[in-house]
């Protein structure tokens, strides 16, 4: 049971609740002497009751004006999940189908299939913190780590827009890593890299990435969307092909394996395989995670006004049953017409 208010300064008006004790709301009726009036406990009680009602009415209205609410606090809970950064390839080829063509009819592009499957993935993991980054020529920070699923879904929704040209995985990974906190050993960091092509990482950048992974300790899942006819992650090179330039995917895979982190690569050639890969990631990344949840507020303004209504009704009733002693106020100098006597 927690109560809070939005506008505390309004409570400065609370001393007004004492006004009913200082001044009477009723019509003042002058009488020669109060000793004329017999003592009456009911009247005395009513006077006290009306004063209390006035105090209550003022206090409750002031309280209502300050917008009280109940609940609405943040609570810390432990669930199962991880901090997941979705690192999405936004290169132009992602807008093609798995067959390497521009989607036509009911065909689904790699980007849309990924989007659809990632949405399910996100929906199944309500307690995860998700961040979204994209990369093509340069990395793009789409959404920092957040527990707002709507925002994550919206970010994922936007990921099948038309992409740009190149694939710069190294800088994308750097950005994804920078979203994590380095000094929280209790958090579990996951990078889900979705890409349809490898890229060469130059040795300088390789060292930098290695250092970053060591520092942030993130699991890496590489979901490779293989386009039909292109090289795969696990293809054995031909005799004259064993260079990063000729087979960037294979060399990328081998580089990731040397990072000394939990790493898994999935090679998907159809939406079904993508789904299978994501399901595996889902099953693997089950760790305790501490997440905060904001309990919904209940606005008590209406209640405050409603409870002010009762004393107000009482006061109104008291006002309406006011009586007068004199039939009407006449001016002193005009006494009633008098009969003439001789």
């Amino acid at each position, binding site marked *: 049971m927690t109560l809070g208010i939005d506008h505390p300064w309004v409570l400065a008006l609370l001393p007004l609740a004492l006004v009913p004790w200082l001044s009477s709301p009723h019509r003042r009726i002058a009488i*020669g002497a109060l000793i004329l009036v017999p003592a009456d406990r*009911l009247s005395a009680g009513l006077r006290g009751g009306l004063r209390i009602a006035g105090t209550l009415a003022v206090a409750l209205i002031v309280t209502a004006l300050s917008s009280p609410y109940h609940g609405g606090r943040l609570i810390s809970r432990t669930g199962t999940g991880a901090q997941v950064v979705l690192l999405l390839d936004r290169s132009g080829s992602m807008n093609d189908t798995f067959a390497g063509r521009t989607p036509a009819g009911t065909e689904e592009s790699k980007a849309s299939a990924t989007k659809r499957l990632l949405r399910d993935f996100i929906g199944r993991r309500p307690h995860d913190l998700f961040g979204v980054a994209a990369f093509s020529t340069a990395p793009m920070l789409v959404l920092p780590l957040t527990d707002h699923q709507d925002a994550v879904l919206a970010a994922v929704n936007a990921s099948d827009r038309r992409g740009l040209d190149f694939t710069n995985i190294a800088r994308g990974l750097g950005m994804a890593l920078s979203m994590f906190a380095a000094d929280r050993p209790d958090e579990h960091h996951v990078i889900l890299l979705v890409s349809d092509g490898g890229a060469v990482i130059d040795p300088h950048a390789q060292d930098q990435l290695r250092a970053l992974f060591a520092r942030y300790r993130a699991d890496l899942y590489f979901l490779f969307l293989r386009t039909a006819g292109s090289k795969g992650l696990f293809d054995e090179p031909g005799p004259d092909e064993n260079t990063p330039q000729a087979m960037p995917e294979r060399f990328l895979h081998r580089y990731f394996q040397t990072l000394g982190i939990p790493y898994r690569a999935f090679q998907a050639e159809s939406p079904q395989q993508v789904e299978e890969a994501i399901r595996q990631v889902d099953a693997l990344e089950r760790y305790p995670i501490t997440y905060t949840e904001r309990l919904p507020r209940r606005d008590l303004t209406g209640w405050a006004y409603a409870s002010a209504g009762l004393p107000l009704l009482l006061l109104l009733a008291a006002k309406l049953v006011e009586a007068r002693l004199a*039939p009407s106020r006449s001016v002193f100098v005009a*006494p009633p017409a008098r009969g*003439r006597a001789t």
Partner: protein
Amino acid sequence: MRSDGLEIHYRPRGPITGRRAGAHPSRQVGGLGTFRDLVPFAAHPDARRIDVRATALDPFDTVMVRRFRQRASIDVYALVDLSASLRYQGHAMKAAVARDLCVALARSATRIGDRFGLIGCGAVLRRDCFLPATARRGVAADVAVLLAPSRWGGPGTGMGPGPERGAGGLLEAVPYLASARKMVFLISDFLLPLELLHRVFEGLAMHDVVPVVIRDSTEGVDLPDWGLLDLADLESGGRRLVFMRPSLKRRWLAQEADRLAALRQLAARHGRVPLTVTDRLDPDEFSRVLLEA
């Protein structure tokens, strides 16, 4: 001031010792008035009133003189309570009723040769509202001016707290009414402590004191049966919220009746029962009750 028809007829009680000729039978014997008795000339040597018939009939040839009961005048004083409680406004303002009564008394008194004086008393004797007894014909107009409604409730403020409250000045007025027997109309709403009234009555014991209670029916039978009244004391300013209902109204009226009965008992011990003027002054009715009282 007002119509000449509004006169109050009064008859003082007890021995009148005034020497000025007037309208009231007195103990003074003299050559005028109603016949009283026959006395020897030696006892009352008034040659103008020698009764020839009685002298001729007297076996001892004593010269007999007729004596008459002289009619004398009396001083009429209005002792008016100027406390703020008379500012009560019901069907009429009680102060206005008191003023009307004093004006009528002044006119009636001066018309039959009596002198009229006015003493206003608040918490102290109010010298701004003091008129020594005079037989001047225009005194009624003066009284009307002196008893303007602003006089009630103390000088200036109307109703003041503390020393302005009450009617203790009534006691201070007693020495001003010393010497000869006078007729004193004590005009108030009598919302006063009985103890104070008792001392006032004792102080005025040698006079013919007529207590006149100014009342208003809105404080009595015209009280509402139901309703909420936020009452304010005109003198102390205190407030009291009262929820009127028939049972409370009955208690209120009973308490009022008790108060008047106590006043009546006190006044009767000192001569006269109090007169009550409710809402407005009816001089004929007032005269009738006054002559009966």
